C-alpha cells in the first residue's frame, strides 16, 4: 500500500495534524490508531478544563476529542482503528510503516511523509525504584483513571498518591468523588508539578493534604497494599531518617512523570533530545529524517491539550507543504540553545529561510523562578526580554519570534545560535 501521508496516533495530536494536512490539500492520508476508538487518552479524562484556548469554552476530555473526531469525519479522513504500527524504517525518502490489525493482518504502507503522534506513557514504579513489596494495589494514575472513568471500576478504597502531576491531582478528586478516601498526596519536589488550579480544586476542596518534599520509602502488604511509608526528603531528594510515617491504605497511585513513547522514532534512527525524551525537531517540526514530523506528547510532554492541537496542526500544514513541494529545502539551521534555567526548547533549531512570519518556541524551566525574565538572544543581540512574575517547571512556556527580527540579526552577521534563558 502507498500513501502520501501516514499519521501514527489518533489522539488529539494525530487528529489535529490530519485535519490540518487535509485542509492544506493532502488527499491521500491515513491515521493509524492502536486503540478501538479515536481520541487517545482524552477519552478517559472526563474532567473539565479542556479547550479554553481553542474553543473559548470549558470542555471535558471526551468532548474536546469529540470535536476533532467530528472534524476528521467531516473531512473524510480515513482512520484505521485497532491498528498497531510494529516497525518504522526508511528506504531512501520512502518511509516504510509496518502495520498490523485483525482485518488486514500484517502489511506495509510506503509513505512519502509520516507524522509521529504516538503520545506518551507514565513512569512506572520500577523506574522510581520504590522499595517494598509488590502486591496488587499499585497503579499509575492513568491506569486507575481508565478503570474508574471508562469501566466504572474502583481500583481501591483508601488511597495514597505519589507525585503531584496533574493526572495525580485529578485522580485524587475523581477517586474522592466516587467514594474512595484519599489520604494524602506526596510530592518529591518542594513544589508541585501540577497546575495551581488543580491543587485548589482537586485537593484543597476535599481537604486532601499535599506533602511537598516527601516520597514513598516502603510499601507493605503481600497480596494487597496494606500501607505505604512516606518520608521527608532533603535537598538532594534523599529521605531523611526519622521522618518516616506509615500510612494505612490499600492503594498507591503514581503520578511521577510522563515519558514520550518514541520506540518507533528510535527504530527509524531519529536524533533524540535527552531533555524531552522526544525527537529533535526544527522550525517545521520536522525530525532529522526528511519528511518525518512530530507533534504532541511524543515530541515533548504538554500540560494543555490546546497547545497540542495547535502544534499538531502546524506539523500537519508543514507535512502538506513538504508533500506539495512548498517546503523549502533545508538550508542554514540555527540551533537554539536552552540555557540558564531553560531545560529545552521545541523547536531545537530554526532555519530562517523555512520559517513562517512568526515562530512559536515552547520550553520548560528547570526550577521555580520569581520576578525573573525570559531572554532570547541571537548574534549578540537581545531579541526579547519578557518579565515574568513566576516561572514554574509544571507550566509550559512559550515565546513567539518574528521572522523579520531574525532576518535583521542574520543580515548583521551570521549568527551561530539563538539562546533562550532565564534572567533573575
Amino acid at each position, binding site marked *: 500500500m502507498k500513501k502520501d501521508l501516514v499519521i501514527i496516533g489518533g489522539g488529539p495530536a494525530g487528529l489535529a495534524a490530519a485535519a490540518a494536512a487535509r485542509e492544506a490539500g493532502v488527499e491521500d492520508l491515513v491515521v493509524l490508531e492502536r486503540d478501538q476508538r479515536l481520541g487517545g487518552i482524552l477519552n478517559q479524562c472526563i474532567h473539565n478544563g479542556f479547550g479554553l484556548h481553542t474553543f473559548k469554552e470549558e470542555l471535558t476530555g471526551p468532548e474536546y476529542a469529540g470535536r476533532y473526531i467530528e472534524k476528521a469525519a467531516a473531512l473524510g479522513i480515513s482512520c484505521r482503528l485497532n491498528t498497531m504500527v510494529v516497525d518504522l524504517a526508511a528506504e531512501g525518502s520512502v518511509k516504510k510503516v509496518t502495520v*498490523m490489525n485483525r482485518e488486514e493482518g500484517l502489511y506495509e504502507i510506503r509513505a512519502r511523509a509520516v507524522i509521529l503522534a504516538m503520545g506518551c*506513557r507514565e513512569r*512506572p514504579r*520500577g523506574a522510581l525504584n520504590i522499595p517494598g513489596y509488590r502486591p*496488587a494495589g499499585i497503579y499509575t494514575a492513568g491506569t486507575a483513571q481508565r478503570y474508574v472513568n471508562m*469501566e466504572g*471500576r474502583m481500583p481501591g478504597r483508601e488511597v495514597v498518591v505519589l507525585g503531584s502531576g496533574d493526572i495525580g491531582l485529578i485522580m485524587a478528586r475523581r477517586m474522592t468523588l466516587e*467514594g474512595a478516601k484519599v489520604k494524602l498526596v506526596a510530592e518529591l519536589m518542594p513544589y508541585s508539578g501540577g497546575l495551581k488550579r488543580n491543587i485548589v480544586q482537586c485537593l484543597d476542596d476535599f481537604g486532601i493534604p499535599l506533602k511537598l518534599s516527601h516520597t514513598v520509602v516502603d510499601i507493605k502488604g503481600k497480596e494487597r497494599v496494606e500501607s505505604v511509608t512516606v518520608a521527608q526528603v532533603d535537598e538532594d531528594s534523599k529521605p531523611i531518617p526519622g521522618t518516616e510515617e506509615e500510612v494505612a491504605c490499600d492503594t498507591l497511585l503514581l503520578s511521577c512523570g510522563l515519558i514520550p513513547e518514541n520506540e518507533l522514532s528510535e527504530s527509524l534512527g531519529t536524533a533524540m533530545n535527552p531533555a524531552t525524551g522526544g525527537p529533535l525537531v526544527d522550525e517545521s517540526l520536522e525530525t532529522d529524517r526528511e519528511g518525518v514530523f512530530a507533534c504532541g506528547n511524543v515530541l515533548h510532554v504538554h500540560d494543555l491539550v490546546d497547545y497540542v492541537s495547535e502544534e499538531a496542526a502546524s506539523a500537519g500544514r508543514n507535512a502538506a507543504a513538504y508533500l506539495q513541494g512548498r517546503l523549502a529545502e533545508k538550508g542554514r539551521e540555527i540551533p537554539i540553545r536552552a540555557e540558564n534555567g531553560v531545560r529545552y526548547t521545541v523547536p531545537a533549531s530554526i532555519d530562517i529561510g523555512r520559517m513562517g512570519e512568526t515562530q512559536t518556541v515552547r520550553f520548560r524551566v528547570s526550577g521555580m523562578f520569581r520576578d525573573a525574565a525570559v531572554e532570547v538572544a541571537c548574534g549578540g543581540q537581545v531579541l526579547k526580554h519578557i518579565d515574568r512574575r513566576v516561572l514554574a517547571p509544571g507550566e509550559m512556556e512559550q515565546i513567539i519570534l518574528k521572522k523579520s527580527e531574525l532576518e535583521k540579526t542574520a543580515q548583521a552577521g551570521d549568527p551561530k545560535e539563538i539562546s533562550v534563558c532565564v534572567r533573575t
Partner: protein
Amino acid sequence: MYDVIVIGAGVCGCAIARELSRYRLRTAVLERASDVCEGTSKANSGVAHAGFDAEPGSLKARLNVEGSRMMEALSKELDFPYKRNGSLVLCFAEKDIPALQRLYDRGQRNGVEGLRILNREQLKKTEPNISDSAVAALYAPTGGIVCPFGLTIALAENAAVNGVEFMLETKVEEIQRMEGGYRLLTDRGSFETKTVVNAAGVYADRFHNMVSEEKIHIIPRKGEYCLMDKKAGGLVSHTIFQLPTAYGKGVLVTPTVHGNLLAGPTAADVEDPEALNTTGEGLADVLRRAALSVEGLPVRQVITSFAGLRAHEEGNDFILGQPKDAPGFFDAAGIESPGLTCAPALGRYLAEMLIGYLPAGKKENFVTERKGIPNMAMASAEEKKRLIASDPLYANVVCRCELVTEGEILNAIRRPLGAVTLDGVKRRTRAGMGRCQAGFCSPRVVEILARELGKDPGQIRKNEAGSEFLTGHDKDGIREAKER
C-alpha cells in the same frame, strides 16, 4: 492412593514431575500458590551456570554440569527460551589472579568444558563495555541464560500432558505416616500416597522435619535485582560475574533471554520466608556493585526491581533423597543457586532414585515434546503472517511494549495449566513485562481473563487470593440520595 505426591510446583518439583511422568505412576503435584513457578523459581538470575562455582564432588557441582549440558536439547524439546551466551568472571586486582586461577581449576575438576583465562585485552575484545578496572577474567563458553518461567512452565505443562495431576492453591499443612506411605493433610482435604517428594523450596525444612528426626534448617537468603529496559540489553552479551573478594560475593550483570539487562542479586539472610520485599539499601547496593563490572550501566533505565529468596541449607549443598528414618520420603531440599540450571538433571536424578524405591515401567505413549506459546515479538514477518492467518487475534496487540497479542494471551489461558491470573499471563506471554510495566495492558488483560474464565473483572487477581485488582464499582462508597 497416589504413587507419588510432589510438594511444590517450582522448577525442581516440575522437573521431577516431568521425569516421573515417563513412568506408569499416579503422580500429583500439590502447590499452595495459584500457579506454578511462584516461589524461588520466579525471582532469580535466569542464568544457566557453566558449573565452575560449586565444590568439586558436591551434588551441586555434578548436577550443575549435567544440567548445563542438558539445557540446550531440553529447550528445543520443550520450546522455552535458552541461549548459550557464555559467562565471564571478572577479576579487578592483579593480586586476585591466583583466586581466578583456583576458580579455573575448580571448573576443570567439575568437568566444565572450554574454560579459559582472558587477559585484559582479550577481555575488552570479547566484551567491549566491560569495566576498565577489570584486569582479567575467567571465560566459560558453556554458560547460558534461560527464562526461569519458560523452563518451569514448560516442564509443568509437559508433565500435565503426560498425566500428572496439578492441584494448585492446595497447601500442605501436615504430613502423617501411614501404612505403606504418607497422608498429606491440606486445606483442601487429605491425600494418601506411597511416596512424597519434598520440593517445597524455602519451606522444605518444615516438611522434612515433620517426618524425620535428622533435622534440617533452611535459611531464606534474599537476593534483590534491578531489571533494565531492552534498550540497555545490548550493553553486554555475556553473563558478567565478579570474582568473590573479601568485600563480598559481588553481583552479576547479564542480558536476559528476552533482551533486557539484569543486575543482582544481593545476599541477605532473613527470617520470614515470605519477605519478598526490596529495600532501599539493597537496590542501591545492586546498582552500585553492578556499575563496577561495566562502563555506563544505565541506572536510569531500570524498569522494575524484585527480590527472590534462595533456600539456603546450613550444609551448603543440595539434600536429595530419603532421610534414613523416612523411607519413601524424598527430599529435594536446600535448592539454591545453581538450582535452576540443575533442575533438569536433578529431576532425572531424583526420579531414578524414586523408581529404585517404587519400581514402575515406562509409558509407551509418553509425549516428549511440548510446543510453547507463539511469540509475535520474536517471530519473522512470515511467521507473523502465518499466525495471523491461523487466527486474526494474533494481530490484535494488547501489550504494546512487548508486542503481545490477544491471540497469545488466549493461548496462554486455554492451554494445559493455563494462566488464571495477571501474573500467570505475564509470565507466559510477557504482557506487562515491558517498559510501561502493565500500565496500558493490565485493564485489557483483566477483561480478557474475566471473559475467558467466566468471572467478573472484580474477581481477577494479580496472583494469590486477596490480590484482586479492583475493589468495587464507582460510588460504592457513596450513600444513595434515596437512603437519606
